[in-house]
């Protein structure tokens, strides 16, 4: 069984030879592996693809998560961004000041200007042996980006109808980016809905605003590609709802009790997680990684349906040996 087969077997409900390992190595950490700065790779797709492939080869895990880049993504909906050095791209201006701006929302084609080139390049470079996942923002997350997170969340009480209308208005962005990723040859789609986390909004607001849009876009896409729903920080209170979205897998963070998650939703969906990307991968050492991996395996490995991963993006300053340890101990404790 090669890496890609191992990953796809789990999503198909089959028992693989060992637990697949697909950490969230993206444009934050990967550029370091090829000695490039983040800002180069955030804006240069070729650099990002090269970095993701090099990280995959160096650390030997089973799949890479391709994206069009943190720069171009919010930019698709017209938000100007600034990138400098290793800084995260900043959305320096939001485009939705109020209801009147909804009509001004323009979605540029995610296939234009070579935006999908990094994904195609990665599929060509590693896709025969390894899984290539593509990641896209949920409508809820796109809506927060174009409105500004604070106004977006204040609108939950101020103007809930605007929240619904805005989410509807940006839904095509999620679908168009998803379809462009699928056409580029990805094996699975990660829908990121970080702002829907119970660390930020109440489970009631999740059900009112985020869940319906998740369910709708997943229903539209699930026949074309397996969907992994990512909500970081604490998603424990909404896990059962997430399992009803139609996603094949849930990417859960370290605040989720993996054993409890396995018990409550493990029969319905695959779990992907949940090594703490900050406390363990960035701040810990290889011994901490081993302990965390062993605990995750003992909580969620039994009977299949588990992909070992970090709960969120591996930080830019994570020691290389900790990422190497994730694969090493993932293999040691992951055999069936």
């Amino acid at each position, binding site marked *: 069984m090669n890496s890609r087969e191992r990953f796809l077997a789990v999503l198909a409900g089959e028992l693989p030879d060992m637990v697949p390992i697909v950490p969230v190595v993206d444009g934050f950490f990967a550029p370091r592996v090829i000695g490039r700065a983040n800002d180069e790779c955030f804006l240069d797709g070729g650099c990002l693809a090269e970095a993701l492939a090099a990280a995959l080869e160096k650390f030997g895990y089973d799949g890479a998560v391709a994206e069009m880049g943190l720069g171009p993504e919010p930019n698709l909906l017209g938000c100007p961004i600034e990138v400098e050095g290793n800084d995260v791209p*900043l959305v320096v201006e939001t485009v939705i000041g109020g209801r009147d701006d909804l009509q001004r929302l323009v979605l540029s084609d995610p296939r234009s200007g070579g935006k999908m080139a990094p994904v195609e390049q990665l599929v060509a470079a590693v896709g025969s042996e390894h899984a290539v996942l593509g990641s896209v923002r949920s409508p809820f997350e796109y809506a927060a980006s174009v409105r*500004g997170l*604070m106004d977006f969340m204040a609108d939950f009480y101020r103007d809930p109808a605007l929240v619904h209308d805005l989410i509807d208005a940006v839904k095509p962005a999620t679908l168009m980016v998803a379809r462009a990723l699928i056409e580029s040859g990805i094996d699975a789609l990660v829908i990121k809905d970080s702002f829907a986390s119970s660390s*930020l*909004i*109440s489970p009631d*607001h999740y059900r009112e605003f985020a869940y319906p849009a998740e369910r709708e876009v997943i229903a539209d896409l699930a026949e074309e590609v397996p969907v992994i729903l990512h909500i970081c920080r604490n998603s424990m209170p909404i896990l059962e709802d997430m399992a009803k979205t139609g996603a094949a897998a849930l990417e859960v963070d370290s605040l989720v009790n993996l054993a409890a998650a396995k018990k409550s939703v493990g029969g319905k969906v695959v779990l992907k997680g949940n090594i703490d990307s900050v406390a363990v991968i960035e701040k810990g050492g290889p011994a901490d990684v081993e302990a965390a991996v062993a605990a995750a395996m003992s909580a969620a490995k039994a009977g299949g349906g588990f992909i070992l991963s970090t709960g969120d993006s591996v930080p830019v*300053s994570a020691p290389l040996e900790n990422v190497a340890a994730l694969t090493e101990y993932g293999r040691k404790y992951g055999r069936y």
Partner: protein
Amino acid sequence: MEETLDKFEEAIVAGDADLSVELAGVIISDARVGADDIFTHLSNAMETVGNRYETGEYFIPEMLRSAEAVERAMVVLEPYLFEKKRDKSGVVVMGTVRGDIHNIGKNIIVSALRAAGYEVHDLGVNVSTEKFIGKVRETDADLLLLSAFTTSTKPALFDIIAALEAEGLRGEVKVISGGASHSEAFAREVGVDGFATDVKSTLAVCRKLTGG
């Protein structure tokens, strides 16, 4: 009037901005109400909001709703409080440091500090070191609050402390940092005077550093 002040406090906690504004109007119609009474109720309200966030009863949207109620009530209250010439709790300059555009935590803290009687100069997000220094000098600030959410902001914190020292202002202003980007240990390494992570700890450390 005590009953109205209690209702006002409850309206802030519930995030009912319209009711907060209405009750603020009732409160200032009675010239006997002291500025201290008003600030006590305002800051109690924001402490309750902070506690409810800590216990998982409130989330970010509920905190924003209460912060908005404070801001709208303050528009009504400010002329009255100014007339009462109450000594302010202190002058605060606050902003999110360069490289970071997160404004939620900052805005909630700004409202909580205003509710506690501080004169707050909010510089917004992605604020340059020069802008912080200029405002501290201009306002003769007692406290400089630096919000830093993303980890890439760490160098900016060192820059600001170094610039305060170079400008001879380090002894004039107490600096407090906070946000998800860094720990208390890192804040000590930067050399700030205080570290806070939420409404409650920010109010406590501000009071401590201003001798309140």
